[in-house]
């Protein structure tokens, strides 16, 4: 099962992209915050919908699917049961409350 690793950044960091005919399922999220302050990490799902009957010119959407705050010097694991119902449709990115190379985010995922 693939994983993706980024460090905390206030600019969205790409984790993975969901192929066209599947949805992305995140199976694990680990945030190892060895920095000097608490960090908040959010997982974003960025996609552009298709043209529909009601929307002739769809615009890019950014949806936040998960938010976690981890204290300084702590590691947090999000349980799989809490991730079970999350479905990602497009590009999955992580964005944090500060730039911190000592705060590592690792996400496990697969496609269905």
């Amino acid at each position, binding site marked *: 099962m693939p994983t993706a690793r980024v460090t905390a950044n206030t600019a969205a960091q790409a984790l993975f992209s969901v192929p*066209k*005919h*599947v*949805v992305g399922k995140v199976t694990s999220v680990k945030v190892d915050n060895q920095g000097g302050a608490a960090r908040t990490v959010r997982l974003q799902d960025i*996609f*552009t*919908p*298709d*043209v*529909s*009957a*009601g*929307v002739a010119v769809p615009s890019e*959407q950014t*949806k936040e699917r998960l938010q976690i705050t981890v204290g300084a010097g702590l590691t947090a694991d999000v349980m799989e049961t809490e991730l079970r119902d999350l*479905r990602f*449709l*497009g590009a999955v990115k992580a964005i944090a409350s500060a730039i911190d190379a000592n705060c590592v985010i690792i996400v496990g995922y697969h496609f*269905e």
Partner: protein
Amino acid sequence: MIVQLSPVLHRVTTYTRPEDLLLTKGAWVRFSDLWPDTHKWAKGKTFVVTQEPIIVPYGASYVLPGADYKDIDLSNATAGLKLYPENEGVLYETLLGFKPGDYLCHIYIPKDKYVYALGETSMFPNVADASLKYLGAKTPLDSPHTAPLLKLFSIKDMAAYILRLYVLEGVDFEKCSLAFQINKCQLQEIPNPTPEQLTKALLLRYYTELTGF
């Protein structure tokens, strides 16, 4: 023209899968007499499938907002998915399966002529109506992509199947994913079919025979 196998076949898979029920070499098919003269090569005739099946998988997916819909044309029209044969004497038997999601699928043939209506004049599928949006609607459970139960038959220049994908209200956005298995069948006419062939051949009715009662 449209066949939906019993969902029980989804579970009784020890010896038979829905895919095993596709037309194979030697199978007989018969087109009803109500096919129009534009399909003269097929109208009222009986055929045998002359080759082993050639099954072509394909997919289509659409991300749509909640309480909204999109019409998907399966024909070879410019804006269609182009899943129809291009030659006479060829029949495409297409299995249609749905990946899981909070959406419905209404089937029309041709555009705006719904298949799954009831006899009373107000009982037709309508995604704008809170109740009628569920009338005749197929859900992903009706034909799961792993064991598709919905079959659509098509020949060259036949009227277009339209799939109206409707994402349920209360859902932000949904990815509606369709999985097709297209069984390409080469047909050879049986000039003088026996009574047994006429009885046992798979009857393909014209779409006008699917409604109006």
